[in-house]
């Protein structure tokens, strides 16, 4: 029994964080926030060399063949740096191909994902419990309809769509009409997508399509939970550092119990969430019986705790925290964004209730 990151995972984490600290200073983040298409080609390339994109792709397809815990470690690092990259999309697409694609389709797509040549945005028509409208039909190999508020679609090469029944279909991004909307998180847009009877490839190799789709969705939720964890930790670390420097009333503010207790509450909320994210990520690969429940709770917990930490740490920065100067808000808004996509806490807990047969009597 060992509940900890492996040596390899810690090294991967360090190299990832080191690289991001290097390539994504505040000025760079501000620059990326301007166009706000949520994609930094240079960063994408660089992370390719670190093996980020092929993390979950089996080795025979040129990937690292690692698991969801590794993906969670990466996602935490990306959230910590507020890196604007379609990582959740990459993870979900990879899993979708592994569970739902034919060997031929895998040959066709997985290597290019691992090589960072394909960038996927994954959209759900209904399943994910998002607000917004979505109605997509797949007639033979023809995809029609629309999706709103799709993440990771700032600059995709491909679109992967899940229908309500769990059927998945892949199409070239260029074949559809994408309308970018700048979101509250300026580093990551949301996209409305219209499919006008475009050619698409069905993925229907899975025995239980719906279950497979849910596994993909849950993996995306775990990635978002880990991303929020990293962002919240970054805000907390910043607030602690600020509280040690900032002087008011002739004292370092961190010496006031008022501020000290705010930060103590944050770490008390956040630290167990890290263990929860690790556990949920590990469960996706190793504990099928616990996979859904832990993914749902991880997404919900981090959504709620992330909000509290984001608010309290901003408060702890006083007026400076509210300005654009420190750029704190990039993390504050990243946490808001993560909370709302692929189903918010309210919806995730609703699914957890259904899963356990805790049905409401109206």
């Amino acid at each position, binding site marked *: 029994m060992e509940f900890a990151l492996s040596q390899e995972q810690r090294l991967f984490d360090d190299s990832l964080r080191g690289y991001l600290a290097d390539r994504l200073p505040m000025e760079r983040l501000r620059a990326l926030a301007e166009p706000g298409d949520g994609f930094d080609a240079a960063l994408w390339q660089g992370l390719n060399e670190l093996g980020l994109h092929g993390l979950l792709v089996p080795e025979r397809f040129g990937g690292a063949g690692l698991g969801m815990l590794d993906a969670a470690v990466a996602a935490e690092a990306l959230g910590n740096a507020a890196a604007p990259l379609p990582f959740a999309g990459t993870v979900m697409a990879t899993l979708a191909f592994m569970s739902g694609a034919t060997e031929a389709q895998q040959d066709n797509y997985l290597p290019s994902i691992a090589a960072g040549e394909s960038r996927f945005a994954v959209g759900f028509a209904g399943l994910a419990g998002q607000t917004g409208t979505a109605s997509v039909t797949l007639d033979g190999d023809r995809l029609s309809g629309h999706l709103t508020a799709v993440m990771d679609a700032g600059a995709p090469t491909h679109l992967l769509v899940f229908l309500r029944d769990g059927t998945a279909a892949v199409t070239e991004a260029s074949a559809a009409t994408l309308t970018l909307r700048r979101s509250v998180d300026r580093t990551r847009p949301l996209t409305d997508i219209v499919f006008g009877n475009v050619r698409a490839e069905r993925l229907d190799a899975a025995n239980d399509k719906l279950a497979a789709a849910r596994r993909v969705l849950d993996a995306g939720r775990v990635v978002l939970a880990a991303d929020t964890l990293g962002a919240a930790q970054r805000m907390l670390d910043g607030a602690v550092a600020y509280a*040690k420097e900032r002087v008011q009333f002739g004292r370092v503010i961190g010496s006031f119990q008022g*501020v000290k207790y705010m930060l103590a509450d944050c770490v008390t909320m956040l630290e167990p969430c890290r263990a929860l994210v690790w556990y949920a990520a590990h469960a996706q690969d190793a504990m099928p019986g616990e996979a859904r429940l832990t993914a749902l709770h991880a997404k919900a917990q981090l959504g709620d705790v992330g909000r509290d930490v984001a608010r309290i740490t901003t408060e702890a920065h006083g007026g400076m925290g509210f300005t654009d100067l420190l750029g704190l808000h990039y993390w504050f808004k990243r946490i808001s964004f993560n909370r709302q996509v692929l189903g918010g806490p*309210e919806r995730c807990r609703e699914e957890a209730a259904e899963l356990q047969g805790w049905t*409401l009597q109206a």
Partner: protein
Amino acid sequence: MDLSLSDKHRELQSQVRSFIRQHGGESPKVGGGRKRPDRKTLDWQRLLVEHGYVGRTIPRDYGGFGAPPDVMESAVIAAEFAHANIYAGLTNQGISMLVPTLLEVGTDEQRRQWIGPTIRGEVIWCQGYSEPGSGSDLANAQTKATLQDGNWIVNGQKIWTSSAHYADWMFLLCRTEPDKPKHEGLSYLLLSMQSPGLEVRPLKTMTGRSEFNETFFTDVKVPAEQIVVGRGKGWYVANVTLKHERLMIGDAGKMTHRLEQLIHLLRNTEIDGRSLIGVAEFRDRLLKLQGEVLAWKAHNLRLLTEAAQGVDSGVRRMIVKYGGTMLGFRLASLAVDALGAAGLPYEPQGEDAEDDDATTWNIDYIYDVGLMIGGGSNNIQKNIIGERGLDLPREPKVQNAAAIGRG
């Protein structure tokens, strides 16, 4: 206990109603962001002053309507304008903070000079309190003013000066007696934003807009007589002003309005065809918030009555800013959660145009965090509640604790 209106107030109510029927068409749009009032707004404002719907209890000599003090009248007027969705007049720091301050502690001359033009919207004021080094610790203001042949020479920097970019005048808290203890070393000056040596730079916030400014002073000249009360009395005057600011924020009317919008939002937002008001967690949060809003609404009626009766509300007034901002934030939180992914698109139109609903909720959500910090942070409010409200002892003063703290 009697929640009905007296004859006198019913009389006023019907006056207001007929005024609105008669002139409502001339009203500018309600809301409309913080910007320099345009012609239409100024005309409307003057009309309101003439009818005593603005500056009602301010003496005629100072440009007001000269009615005897009766907060219930103001409440009746406010209710009618709100109900008819008619612009109830300018709210800015000059009207809400400086005017009451001058009425309380200004000289007759200062009142004659400033109150009329200010309530008519002809003169716009901004507030020069906070500094980068002293946010919560206002009394620690370092911006200096020294008296040289009949003028104060001001040097330093202020922050959070909202509306400084279009204001005509500023009320400024600065240090004129460096040798005195910090609370006794401050003075409260009035100065023109046209003064040479004064530079205003917009300050961008989390919302992505520039609701505030930084203001820099380099040898800015202020005639010696443009001081309120006197040398070293700045902290006293500033607190008179702050008292009024804290009452502005955490306003039960705003909460009730938000709650109604929220109910509408939850009824009309769906996930997979289910209205959110039928989703357990959303509904439960709405119910809890409804209970709290009802409580604050009633609390507000109580404060109003106490003001009318000249009773000092004490701690009941002190809890308003802290309690109100937290509740406001939780209302906005439920709204952004209900909007969900579809509500994430965010396009603030700046201060002159109207934002879409989702953007407005997101701005409220973010701006409320600013309200927890500005105008006396939550922690400052809790100090006030604990020390002034519950008479708990203050934090003991510490000698060079900064050093200790750092150690």
